[in-house]
């Protein structure tokens, strides 16, 4: 099978711009989803251990719902379903201001928030109870002991899984193409349709995703080194 790959054609306009914009869209979507997912994840984890009535049950139901329904179904429900429930002028505003980006961010952000909250929760639970007892026995209050004793240890424990889920989040942004969002996969398909350079365009997309995944893994390894318990 002799492959005569022609990457030069992809450097020409308008294809090059399309691909670059696709990459930018993917990265922007990743950033927006990640911020939403981490923020909401922390909130959910804290609410869950707060001891408020029904808090545990409510968060557990939320997490279960998010994790048992595939990402595509979530995306469709938000973009095609829930959008129609909004008042008409909100719908048209959203339509004019990148509805695909907005609903993808919401759907993916909410989905990954469930995973991140579980990571944080299991991290908090892995810190031995004696640590909290020792901190409280020294006279440290609840928040002080969380901040200086429990949380540093919890972050150290949950970092590998957290990094994994960050990479999963990044891969999930590719599903936004099913909504017609102009992210990398969508851009690659558009260019492929116009140029018929299937191998070349697919390789570009694959390299993009692999490279960013690798970068995220490296970032995770650096972070893990920094929070590693000394002497280990």
């Amino acid at each position, binding site marked *: 099978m002799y492959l005569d790959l022609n990457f030069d054609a992809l450097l020409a306009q308008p294809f090059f711009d399309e691909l670059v914009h696709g990459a930018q869209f993917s990265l922007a979507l990743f950033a927006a989803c990640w911020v939403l997912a981490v923020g909401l994840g922390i909130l959910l984890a804290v609410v869950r251990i707060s001891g408020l009535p029904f808090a545990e049950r409510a968060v557990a139901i939320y997490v279960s719902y998010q994790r048992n329904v595939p990402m595509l179904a979530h995306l469709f429900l938000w973009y095609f379903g829930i959008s129609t429930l909004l008042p008409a002028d909100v719908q048209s505003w959203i339509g004019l201001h990148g509805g695909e980006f907005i609903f993808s961010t919401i759907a993916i952000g909410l989905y990954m928030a469930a995973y991140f909250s579980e990571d944080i929760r299991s991290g908090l639970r892995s810190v*031995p109870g*004696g*640590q909290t*007892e*020792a*901190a*409280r*026995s*020294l*006279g*440290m*209050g609840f928040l*002080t002991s969380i901040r*200086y*004793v429990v949380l*540093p*240890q919890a972050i*150290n424990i949950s970092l590998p899984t957290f990094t994994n889920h960050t990479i999963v989040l990044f891969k999930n942004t590719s599903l936004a193409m099913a909504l017609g969002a102009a992210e990398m996969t969508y851009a690659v398909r558009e260019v492929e349709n116009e140029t018929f350079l299937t191998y070349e365009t697919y390789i570009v997309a694959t390299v993009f995703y692999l490279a960013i995944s690798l970068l995220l893994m490296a970032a995770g390894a650096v972070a893990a080194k920094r929070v590693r*318990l*000394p*002497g*280990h």
Partner: protein
Amino acid sequence: MLALSKVNKWYGNYHALVDITADVQRGEVVVVCGPSGSGKSTLIRTINRLESIHKGSITLDGTDVHSKLQNVNKLRSRIGFVFQQFNLFPHLSVIENICLAPMKVLGKSKTEARDRAASLLSRVGLANKADAYPQQLSGGQQQRVAIARALAMDPPVMLFDEPTSALDPEMVGEVLSVMKSLAKDGMTMMCVTHEMGFAREVSDRVWFMDKGAILESSDPDTFFTNPEHPRAKSFISDLRH
């Protein structure tokens, strides 16, 4: 200094502490001993409110420990507690372990806290381990750091919950000698321990507990040579064999 009056505690239907009435004078060293499951650890943990009580009262210099109005953090900063499992903070160095609470709870400055920590480390014989991490130390060394950490808060009373039970035999001595020197310096101490040699040498009073109640409270000489209560008698004779 420390007064317990008719303290009772239940775990469900199980009566864990039965009508405990006793007191600890300033400067006194009290050893609490008895068979496993007798409630010794539960009792000592109620004193700094790691466990709750259902009836009765515990007062420290007149203040009711378990009152809801009491600021529990302020109270705990005046009671030093040493755990069987040391519970040092693994993400902090030895000196950071000792300085954390004085800085965050007592508001001491970093230099103030560090100076005091350094002198306490010398006192427990670990001056050269200031920058080491807990995982790098032996059990006996870790427990001595834990004692220094508790002392850093300048508490008027120190509680020890089986401080040597988790240690290899050859390290028990180094921890006991720190505790002995504390006693000699006049610290008010309450120790739950199986180390009867320590009890005979250092304590002013021995409380013998079984099934949640204090069955006998006497001075160490009397207790070890001629205890009154029959269960105390069998406990002492079991120790000898």
